[in-house]
């Protein structure tokens, strides 16, 4: 595939992620902060998000599996996950966290467990999508092209 085609593919894929609600405006802000002096900024921040989230999701699973659930602890973890997903623009993960927080406030264990599944689902989806996106970017750069961020036109 030649560079122009890859760039168009990148544009279409990125736009679809926004249209389908996986990403919101905050992700655009991250992209705006990337430049020649910091060419890997988005990948770096998103990688931090992946690491952080996986740990939080494990902690949440474990906390909700306790005999006596410590809802304060659960809430603290969800708050953190909600914050980081919001910071990178992972809209659906953020929204799932908001729902989970509501169940937490109600101290509804079943609700929390079900909602946590939803959070994990959304997380895995956006992780997959972003990894695809980054792979496309690597291919474009390897072929000597540049990422057409300014053409997103939002």
């Amino acid at each position: 595939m030649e560079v122009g085609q890859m760039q168009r593919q990148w544009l279409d894929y990125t736009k679809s992620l926004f249209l389908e609600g996986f990403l919101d405006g905050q992700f655009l802000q991250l992209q705006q902060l990337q430049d020649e002096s910091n060419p890997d900024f988005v990948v770096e921040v998103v990688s931090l998000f992946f690491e952080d989230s996986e740990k939080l999701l494990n902690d949440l699973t474990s906390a909700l599996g306790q005999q006596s659930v410590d809802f304060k602890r659960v809430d603290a973890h969800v708050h953190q996950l909600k914050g980081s997903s919001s910071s990178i623009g992972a809209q659906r993960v953020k929204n799932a966290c908001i729902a989970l927080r509501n169940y937490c406030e109600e101290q509804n264990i079943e609700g929390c467990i079900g909602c946590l599944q939803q959070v994990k689902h959304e997380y895995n989806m956006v992780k997959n999508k972003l990894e695809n996106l980054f792979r496309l970017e690597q291919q474009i750069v390897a072929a000597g092209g540049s990422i057409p961020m300014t053409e997103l036109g939002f």
Partner: protein
Amino acid sequence: MEVMESDHVHHAIEEQQEQQHFHVLAVDDSLIDRKLLERLLKVSSYKVTCVDSGDEALKYLGLVDDDVDKNSPASSSSSSSPQSPAQDGLKVNLIMTDYCMPGMSGYDLLKRVKGSSWKDVPVVIMSSENVPARISKCLEGGAEEFLLKPLQLSDLKNLEHYLLKPLHHSCQSNIISDIAAEDDGVDSSDDNINNDIIDSKSSSSSSNNNNSIINKRKAVSPEPSERRPRAKGLAVV
């Protein structure tokens, strides 16, 4: 443009006017948010130092003493900071802190700073949660501004106002405190808009709803556009 290295007066004036020399102390327990804020600030030509807690911030500012009594900032300010920051050569033009942190909250840090030799340094508080009572508390506690996360470049453009007009800023704080005291009638109507903690923030026009509490505050002030910069979500991008 030529700058004479030996011309101290010229250099001092330049420091006042050029953002490159403004040093921001950023406090946030989230690594992701620290990274983001650091980048936002650097892109806006500020120097940045990031710390991950209020305690670390106090250490950095030289405000830590052994017998810390959190309930009486007066006593800690008299017994702490062995020398003034200016003597140390440490210059901090702005402190930006997250509100929700384990241990010392951003509000606690605000009070400690305001009760210390660093009291004239503007403090901006950030939070992912739009809670009117929290915002009022911080502003009345001496915070310059309350910003909703996630932060954007447009938020940082507003910071120039605090950094370039230090004297004017202290007048602003007093006026805003007075307005806050009279604000009760206006604030109650915010409940209709901000009944639940508004967490969502998008680049669409609906983001204006999240900032209505801050808009309301500015609306009470006679000259909102002059007195206070717009908080968030209102800058035309």
